[in-house]
């Protein structure tokens, strides 16, 4: 009976035959574990859709109520905290996996003939994934999210001619307000996922049409005139059905990804909600989530005269490179014959990790949490020195300058400042300021300045 039902269903819909054809389509042998990242990215997206739908049943996409609904989900709803954690770490997995998948595709030059459109559809999916990640962070709709929207709008505002309009489009007006969150919700939940579904469909259809790229071999360049015949001959000679000969690795790796996400959701949990989304609360320290944190460091460290170039041309250049890459669709695929490709991937990942590390430290930011210097650091009972140490903290010097590990890293460490500057020079620097340091002539009395300099003159 069941068999007859499926036979009827297949006759009328063709679904079972099509699925069987897709699952059993021949793939090159020995593809190995490098080929699992695409399917794992897809699995992470499915995870996002499933957990996202569940969260959307309780989330209120209203500027005035979203924060409270998230508090409810996190603190009261059954499994709400776990689902938020799954959604957060699922997003992290998706960003990481698509990054590795793109890197692998580039390293193995799988974008070359006849898979140029596979690459282009994948490139757009990469950009959409980043857009999903950014808009998702904003839906947390706490203080950090609100200020992140403003920072995003300010970057868009740097664009010549259309900048102000782009900023207003992002804010949905002149300020943060009732319309801002609804807009990001619609983009995060409807518009971008719809595009992702369409592009994933195209991407998979292209994978079936052109087949999975074979492992590249040095000395076997891609020649559009002969490639398809050689690939077909390879499949006839050594091809194996995708299911289960190759797919088992995707399943095993996918299960590991889901297990990791579940583990982190349980052990670490979702990011804490910050203060309420009240733009009038100024005790804020906006930071993007980890996957965009490296860009936060770029904006702090890039020289001022290059900043607009980076903000405006950087994304355009990145997009143009992704789109234009398949122009070079012939020749060697093996990274042994394209060592610069390997170096480029290493360079990009090293750069991102380095900036990410710099952003973790954020040495350029004043340390507003700096505590008064302890007696063990001051190491003096001289009242002037002790008073100088007190003023050093009170007047904000310690926000930017550290002494024996206490204080900010924005300015030079002053633990041994007296070994390189005299007291007079120190006073002069405080009075007149220096590179990246404001002058304090107007905010300190001569007596206060002398007292601070007396304290600093003991640091050697």
């Amino acid at each position, binding site marked *: 009976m069941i068999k*007859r039902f499926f*036979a009827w269903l297949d*006759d009328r819909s063709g679904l079972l035959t099509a699925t069987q054809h897709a699952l059993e389509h021949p793939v090159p042998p020995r593809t190995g574990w490098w080929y699992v990242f695409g399917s794992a990215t897809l699995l992470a997206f499915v995870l996002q859709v499933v957990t996202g739908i569940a969260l959307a049943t309780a989330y209120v996409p*209203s*500027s*005035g*109520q979203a924060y409270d609904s998230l508090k409810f989900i996190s603190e009261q709803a059954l499994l709400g905290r776990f689902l938020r954690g799954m959604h957060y770490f699922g997003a992290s997995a998706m960003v990481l996996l698509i990054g590795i998948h793109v890197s692998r595709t580039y390293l193995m030059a799988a974008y070359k003939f006849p898979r140029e459109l596979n690459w282009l559809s994948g490139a757009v999916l990469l950009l959409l994934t980043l857009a999903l990640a950014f808009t998702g962070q904003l839906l947390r709709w706490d203080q950090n999210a*609100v*200020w992140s929207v*403003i*920072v995003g*709008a*300010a*970057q868009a*505002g*740097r664009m010549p001619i259309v*900048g*102000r309009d782009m*900023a*207003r*489009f992002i*804010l949905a*007006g*002149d*300020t*943060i*307000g*009732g*319309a*801002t969150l609804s807009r990001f919700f619609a983009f995060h939940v409807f518009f971008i996922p719809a595009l992702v579904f369409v592009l994933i469909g195209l991407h998979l259809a292209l994978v079936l049409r052109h087949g999975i790229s074979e492992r590249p071999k040095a000395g076997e360049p891609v020649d559009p005139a002969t490639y398809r015949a050689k690939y077909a001959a390879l499949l006839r000679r050594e091809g194996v059905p995708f299911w289960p000969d190759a797919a088992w690795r995707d399943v095993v790796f996918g299960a590991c990804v889901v297990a990791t996400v579940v583990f982190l959701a349980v052990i670490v949990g979702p990011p804490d909600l910050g203060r309420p*989304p*009240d*733009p*009038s609360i*100024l*005790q*804020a*320290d*906006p930071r993007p989530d980890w996957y965009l944190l490296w860009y*936060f460091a770029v*904006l*702090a460290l890039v020289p001022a005269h290059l*900043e607009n170039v980076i903000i405006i041309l950087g994304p355009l250049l990145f997009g143009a490179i992704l789109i234009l890459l398949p122009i070079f669709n012939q020749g060697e695929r093996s990274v042994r014959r394209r060592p610069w490709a390997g170096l480029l991937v290493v360079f990009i990942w090293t750069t991102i990790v380095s900036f990410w590390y710099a952003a973790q430290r954020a040495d*350029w*930011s*004043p340390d507003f949490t700096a505590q008064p210097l302890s007696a063990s650091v001051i190491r003096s009972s001289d009242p002037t020195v002790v008073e100088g140490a007190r003023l050093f903290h*009170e*007047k*904000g*010097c310690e*926000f930017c300058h550290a002494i024996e590990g206490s204080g900010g890293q*924005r300015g030079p460490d002053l633990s041994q400042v007296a070994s390189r500057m005299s007291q007079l020079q120190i006073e002069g620097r405080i009075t007149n*300021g220096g590179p*990246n*340091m*404001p*002058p*304090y002539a*107007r*905010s300190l009395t001569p007596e206060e300045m002398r007292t601070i300099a007396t304290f600093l003159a003991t640091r050697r």
Partner: protein
Amino acid sequence: MDPTDRSDPAPSHPSAPSADPDRRRFLTRISIGLSTLVAAVMGIPVVGFLVSPLIRKAPRVWRAVGPVDRFKLGETVNVSFEDASPLPWAGVTARSAAWLRRDSEIQFTAFSVHCTHLGCPVRWFGEAELFLCPCHGGVYNADGSVAAGPPPHPLPQYPVQVRNGQVEILTSRIPIA
């Protein structure tokens, strides 16, 4: 329900009358034209709705932030006020803030709280007489001029007035671009 019946009900090529090339061309054109019209009817209002914030002229209104006597001479304090026309569901997001300083008996200066680098919230540190930005280390002097860091411009100022014993600030857009 006969799964063995696999006869194809559709003929491989349609025959007359649409086999006439002129008729077929006409039908193609009218179908594409109508489809485009339908897409435009659906799409234009949607696009217009999405870009409406660009067209809408935001009103500016004076908002009271407190009686004059509340502010000490020379002191810089954080004041908050409601946006010009908040939506009913905006909640706390309808609030804005400014750094307000009393310069004389009747004169006040109100600085934007947005760093001109990338819009982060600057904080006033009275002891150092500086505005500091927590994001990328921008520093402003007490008069709003740039003292250090990446900000390209001084802190913008809001118009302020004193009316009926109340200090009022004119609501403004977030100073971007």
